[in-house]
């Protein structure tokens, strides 16, 4: 039943009503009769943040390609809308048919990062569903979660019935088929879960029990007799065999990314030791240039987009990047289509690419040296030297750019004052390079923005055992930088260290952290990724109320022999490799990129029966 009449009545009272309407171009409005499966895909943040998410767009198109499946979308209503929905008893609905989420068979969330977890709880509650999985029954939709957060699903286990670990392009059909069959057989919830546990990559938390040691660490994680002892991340072995999604939804409102974005490859083998994405999307699998270009051509036809973006974790590393950009810029010459390339490397090659595509508009450029000293850059395996940075920015200034953003992290393991001073000095040298290269009005417009984010160690990385800095340490370091990064051409930006500490505690949390998440939501936490909405005091209280210490999860160094709460989730990368990488870090040894420097023996190819695919 459509809730549109009720929804429409309150739209006058909220800002940006476009968030809650439908009929965006390429949205699918259809119905199934009889034995179809109804899927609601949920992004736990507001519409303009959630809509561009590539994973959900892929699933939406795949699911709707089947006649027996309807997939619709839902996002977290903004605070004003939530208030009127609660006041008027309007349950959370999907956009396409304005149907209550309770009418769906499957409700799937994507867990993109830890600070959207409370929104998952809030959306379940707004839907009128019990927030706790244990309280849901056969009449409720199956609540599924996917996305990078599933590599440590434990903190969300109290709320989610089924986790899908890894890439879902193939798995999703196995799951839908099973649900369809079970629905036909009127299977009970427990039977459904047991059956789904047989699908590789599916994790059913209720089939695993966790025991703890007296010191609070995990003693063991035990699987039920018919559940696999570990869950192996699913991947699409040949990414190029999967067609480029052709009909992305075009939002009416201004979304965070509103452009034709085509994934040119999955995975990154650069091996930055702090980076979780660099581990959990391995191996590197490219699309062919032909596939990328024809995909873009089709998307532009179905969307009318005026901007193209080649997306991946490191698009300058895509082996056909030059040819692709050249072909695209020739094809769309004079048609007012702009090209963009996210995630640049700090080198002349990347700059050359940008120079090609930014023929007229030279807005800002962002580079990520990540750390201020060579010692620290070697420690994190970021293969960039100060010379690389200065040469690249000088070239950029010569080409006419006047605004440079430098991205650093503070709180990396083993960081000393010298490393912080390194951030200051490198930033100042970039300013000096700008002043020496630019002249006249351009010189006076020179701006170097330094972004310093507070590092949170993540599961399945070489730094998964280290202690995160405490809030006090982070704030002292921010103060150090603020006192020194001054000057007409310099500006310093950072994220709230408080949210990094909460993020850090959840990221490496165990099942009990779910209690703190529940409590935080109960205390009113939501939209934690929004600076204005984030409430540190409530989070502190939530941990305290549930008898947990955030510092146990965030600020504690783990021993290599400790059973990590996520040890039953296998990304394919061996724990031994992660340990070895940690040792190499401490010895200042670099590890090469396996695409060019030989196999680094991370284990992912043999474990997942896959390989790098480079054209």
């Amino acid at each position, binding site marked *: 039943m459509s809730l549109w009449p009720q929804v429409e009545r309150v739209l006058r009272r909220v800002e940006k009503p476009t968030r809650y309407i439908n*009929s965006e171009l390429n949205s699918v409005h259809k119905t199934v009769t009889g034995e179809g499966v109804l899927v609601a895909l949920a992004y736990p943040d507001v519409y303009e943040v959630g809509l561009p998410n590539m994973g959900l767009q892929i699933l939406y198109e795949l699911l709707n390609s089947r006649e027996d499946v309807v997939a619709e979308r839902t996002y977290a209503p903004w605070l004003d809308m939530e208030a009127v929905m609660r006041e008027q008893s309007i349950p959370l609905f999907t956009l396409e048919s304005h149907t209550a989420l309770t009418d769906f068979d499957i409700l799937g969330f994507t867990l993109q990062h830890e600070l959207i977890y409370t929104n998952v709880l809030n959306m379940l509650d707004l839907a009128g569903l019990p927030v706790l999985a244990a309280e849901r029954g056969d009449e409720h939709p199956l609540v599924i979660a996917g996305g990078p957060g599933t590599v440590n699903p434990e903190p969300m286990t109290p709320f989610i019935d089924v986790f899908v670990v890894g890439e879902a392009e193939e798995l999703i059909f196995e799951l839908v088929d099973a649900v369809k069959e079970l629905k036909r057989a009127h299977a009970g919830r427990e039977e459904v879960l047991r059956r789904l546990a047989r699908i590789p990559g599916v994790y059913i938390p209720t089939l695993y029990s966790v025991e703890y040691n007296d010191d609070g660490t995990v003693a063991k994680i035990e699987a039920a007799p018919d559940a696999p002892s570990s869950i192996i991340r699913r991947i699409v072995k040949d990414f190029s065999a999967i067609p480029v999604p052709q009909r992305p939804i075009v939002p009416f409102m201004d979304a965070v990314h509103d452009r034709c974005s085509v994934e040119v490859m999955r995975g990154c083998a650069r091996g930055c030791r702090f980076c979780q994405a660099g581990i959990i999307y391995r191996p590197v699998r490219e699309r062919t240039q032909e596939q990328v270009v024809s995909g873009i051509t089709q998307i532009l036809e179905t969307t009318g*987009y005026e901007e193209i973006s080649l997306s991946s974790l490191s698009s300058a590393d895509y082996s056909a990047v030059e040819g692709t950009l050249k072909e695209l810029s020739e094809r769309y010459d004079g048609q007012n289509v702009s090209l963009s390339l996210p995630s640049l490397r700090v080198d002349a090659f990347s700059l050359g690419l940008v120079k090609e595509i930014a023929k007229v508009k030279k807005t800002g450029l962002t580079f990520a040296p990540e750390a201020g000293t060579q010692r620290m850059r070697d420690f994190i395996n970021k293969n960039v030297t100060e010379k690389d940075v200065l040469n690249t920015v000088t070239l950029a200034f010569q080409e006419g750019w006047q605004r440079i953003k430098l991205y650093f992290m503070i709180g990396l393991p083993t960081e000393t004052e010298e490393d912080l001073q390194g951030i200051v000095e490198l930033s100042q040298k970039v300013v000096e390079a700008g002043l020496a290269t630019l002249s006249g009005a351009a010189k006076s417009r020179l701006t170097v923005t330094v972004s310093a984010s507070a590092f949170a160690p993540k599961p399945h990385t070489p730094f998964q055992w280290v202690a995160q800095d405490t809030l006090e340490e982070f704030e002292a370091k921010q103060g150090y930088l603020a006192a020194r990064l001054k000057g007409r051409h310099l500006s310093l930006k950072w994220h709230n260290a408080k949210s990094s500490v909460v993020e850090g505690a959840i990221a490496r949390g165990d099942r009990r952290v779910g209690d703190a998440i529940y409590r935080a939501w109960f205390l009113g936490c939501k939209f934690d990724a929004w600076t204005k909405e984030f409430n540190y005091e409530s989070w502190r209280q939530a941990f305290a109320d549930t008898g947990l210490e955030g510092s146990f999860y965030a600020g504690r160094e783990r021993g290599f022999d400790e059973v990590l709460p996520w040890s039953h989730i296998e990304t394919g990368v061996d724990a031994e490799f992660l340990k070895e990488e940690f040792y190499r870090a401490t010895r200042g040894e670099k590890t090469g990129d396996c695409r060019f420097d030989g196999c680094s023996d991370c284990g992912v190819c043999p474990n997942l029966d896959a390989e790098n695919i480079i054209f």
Partner: protein
Amino acid sequence: MAKLLLHYGKDGPLKYLSHLELIRAFERSFRRAGIEVEASGGFNPRPKISYGPALPVGTSSRSEYLVAEVKSTLCDDDIIERISRVLPKGLGVFRAKYIAEKQSSIASVIECVAYKVEVKTLASAGELSSLVEILRNEERLLIKHKGKEKWVDSKESILDWNIEEAGGGRHVFLMLLAAGERNSVRPEVLIDKLNQSYPHVQDIEVVGIERVAEYVNRDIPLIDIYDFYKNVTIGSECEKS
């Protein structure tokens, strides 16, 4: 280059699009339809499309116009067909024609607008009629809108009106209101005015507003804006795609 006048409508959920969102939707629709639009110069080239007065968010309309400077010389039927095929549901093109290059902008020539306003109230049609009549008989009205105040001449502002019962406590107001520089007033502001001026009467709740026509004059016979722009033949003959 040719100037194309497009008469379109906006309804359903899409009536909640803001003016900027509507503009982007049209720009992308022209691209999808393969109708090339001239671009402005400068660092940030923009498609040369001009629009009529912005429709308030939540108001539907069957009387919206835009002028696009197009490179194509497709026949108007073809243009309608091509763009209708790619427009999102809720936007629809009714008519299109090529017009002379030098023309006053849509926004500058509109003098009055006809609206259909559906309201819900416990008051009867007769009561509503007499209320409007009292308002009209006041010489001047103080109009408050978005924190601004202005005085308008009542009879010059509310040009004509009619009320029909629609059943279930609903009434349909048809109103012809002045637009442009002098004495302009919006329908929702007028309903607010009724509510404020007669607090003893039952609340009048707006259910929906639709813009139904736009004219370039305020006297009988009214001249529809579409007819005001004379069509021209482009080049020798238009192309059939």
